[in-house]
């Protein structure tokens, strides 16, 4: 049986990943800051392990990695992230805002990926996924402002690209994935896709990923997202 670890698994895209992998018979490690709602947990079935993980707290990342020591993990999905929040012009951007966004969306995924490297090495599939965004694209994104969010996702793509190069020798496939515009809390429930559609597409990309596809930003629709 395959094992997947998902961060930010208590809602939105993360929860949908947990649901779909659980339905497909995978063992799911659901890592989130806030516990799963009892009804969601019940729906996921018996083969789910819940663990605390707060992207802004290195101690929680260390504890998570410690509890998982020696356990193979096939697919790690670094999904926990935050949106652009108070969207302000350049003159009003504060360090309090961008620090939180960069730490959550860029630093934390790299850090946790590093800590879980031994688990991925033990797994059969060896796939590392980071949930990115069209906002990471220099050439495609046309929404005003969102300085910190855009920087955080572009920088995340670069981190994952670096991992794809460094971890190529042991066969790890590293994928920044674009979920598309999904109706979740982060998008104020605006979007063209349900979480189910987006995650179905992303799971397909993950399932079919080859080493040649590592280090490239893929969309839920199987299309390459230009940098």
């Amino acid at each position, binding site marked *: 049986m395959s094992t997947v670890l998902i961060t930010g698994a208590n809602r939105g895209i993360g929860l949908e990943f947990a649901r779909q992998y659980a339905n497909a018979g995978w063992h799911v490690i659901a890592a989130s800051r806030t516990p799963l709602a009892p009804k969601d947990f019940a729906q996921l079935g018996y083969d789910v392990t819940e663990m605390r993980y707060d992207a802004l707290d290195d101690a929680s990342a260390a504890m998570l990695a410690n509890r998982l020591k020696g356990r193979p993990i096939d697919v790690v999905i670094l999904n926990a992230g935050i949106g652009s929040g108070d969207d302000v*012009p*350049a003159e009003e951007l504060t360090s309090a805002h961008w620090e939180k966004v*960069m730490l959550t969306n860029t630093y934390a995924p790299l850090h946790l990926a590093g800590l879980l490297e031994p688990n991925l090495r033990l797994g059969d599939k060896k796939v590392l996924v980071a949930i990115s965004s069209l906002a990471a694209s220099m050439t495609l994104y046309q929404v005003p402002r969102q*300085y910190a969010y855009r920087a955080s996702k572009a920088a*995340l793509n*670069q*981190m994952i690209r*670096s991992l794809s190069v460094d971890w190529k020798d042991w066969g790890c496939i590293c994928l920044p994935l674009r979920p598309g515009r999904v109706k979740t809390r982060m998008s104020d429930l605006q979007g063209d896709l349900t979480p189910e559609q987006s995650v179905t597409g992303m799971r397909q990309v993950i399932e079919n990923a080859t080493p040649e596809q590592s280090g490239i930003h893929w969309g839920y629709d199987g299309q390459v997202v230009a940098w």
Partner: protein
Amino acid sequence: MPIILISGANRGIGLELARQFSGDGWTVIGTARDVAAATELAALPQTSVLPLEATDPDAIAALAKTLAGQPIDVIIANAGIAINLAAKPVEVTRADFLKVVRTNTFAPLALVAALKPNLLAGQRKVALAMSSLMSSIEANNWATQYTYRASKTGLNAVFTALTQDWKPLGIACGLIRPGMVATEMTNFNGIPVETSVAGLKKVVENLTMADAGRIIGYDGADVPW
């Protein structure tokens, strides 16, 4: 003659930029963390030196106050740092990450944003940040330098966003790449700083609104994102 502001102008690429622009008759405002130590910069013709710790919002506010009413044609946010380039993923600390991102990604944005009135009062209205080939995701095929690379990729994203937001104001934002230059940061490996800066100067002089949003190398070529 035009007026250019260069941050981190007390050494390396920044100092050479100040040297070549002032040598060509431009008025140069060079910033340095330690003004007293920036003797080479201060000795250049029509050059003034102002204190700036680029990561300190109060210092940026003070600089903007000092320069209030002063038109500036071109800003080059040049100051940047690199820490522990060889760190493995688990060795990248939160503190190092924040420090590098603060300096390389968000300080350039804060600087040009604070001096927006000066740019609007200038003739050329050009705001540039010093990027790097290391910013390129496409060209990243030898990894390492996790945080440094990510900080420069983030800088590209920030100036891409700024380009879009400031285009209606007539300010051309962009990114420049100095190439691998022999400075303290590279243990003096690479091309002579004079060569890099001569190329960058040409890029800056010829830059128009049509170039806004590009990342241009010292050789005039675009760097892949």
